[in-house]
């Protein structure tokens, strides 16, 4: 198990918390919470040694969607494709609640 921490300077504040994904092999949970501090991503992953992959996935995500949020991710061995899909799903939920 590995704990990862990232910060981003993104400024589109979100208004509501969102929770997507499930606790299951090959999947992950993503929780977004509003914050007035710097965007923070805390990841707990069962797959060690993928820090760079996470960093790339998140960087690409925030380049496109510069949301300001406190983000918690619990990963159970998901692929980058599944991670991207869950992040997209979390964004859609944010849109729905506007």
């Amino acid at each position, binding site marked *: 198990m590995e704990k990862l921490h990232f910060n981003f300077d993104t400024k589109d504040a979100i208004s509501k918390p969102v929770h997507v994904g499930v606790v*299951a092999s090959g999947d992950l949970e993503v929780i977004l919470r509003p914050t007035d501090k710097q965007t923070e991503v805390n990841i707990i992953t069962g797959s*060690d040694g993928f820090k760079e992959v996470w960093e790339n996935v998140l960087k690409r995500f925030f380049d496109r969607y510069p949301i300001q949020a406190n983000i918690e991710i619990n990963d159970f061995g998901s692929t980058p494709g599944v991670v991207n899909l869950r992040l997209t*799903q979390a964004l859609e939920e944010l849109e729905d609640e506007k």
Partner: protein
Amino acid sequence: MVIETHDLIQISSPMELINNDQPKWVQEIFPKSLTVVVRRSPFVEGWIPVGIRGIKREQRFATYVSTSAIQKVITPYQLVREGSWVDLGAERKKLPAMSALPGISKILSGYNWGISGSVGFELATRTNTAKVTSDLDLIWKVEKPISKSSAQALLKKLNMFGVHADLQVIQGNNGFSLEEYANSRSTIMVKTLKEPILVHDPWIDSNRVER
């Protein structure tokens, strides 16, 4: 022979794997089981997409085996039909995920269900793969859609045994988490051969995608 995602394939030798830079752990652990797991990925003419399992979660290696290399196919459903956990050694039976199986098989009696993940791999290969912390990964081929409330009730029963039981619903080549469906308010993720997608209704939408 129809080969599906989650099936376990035994091959005769590590030489049968496409040799694309196998990590050291593959070379150490694979000869003990000579068994690969079919991945949810498109088949390429004569080649089956498979994964090799290591001990740790990050130890997963994707490769292909030729259909001609197949010695034996064991399906997750067969592990259930044969009651494969009954003659497990006493120590292994004590693992939470293993000890849940007799109770779970009573609840799922009459369902077309199978055992995947580390528990299925251990039952098929008799190599010590499951851990004290292992979840119980189950798959279920459904005939008809079920309601969210029935899904919730079923999951509640399956999770009475002190281990997290995860049930993946299988429709054709697609799979989705029953837990996500049971709790969903908007979209849910369906894993297809090509890629994961988001749908509003997994029962209808997944019938529309290619098989």
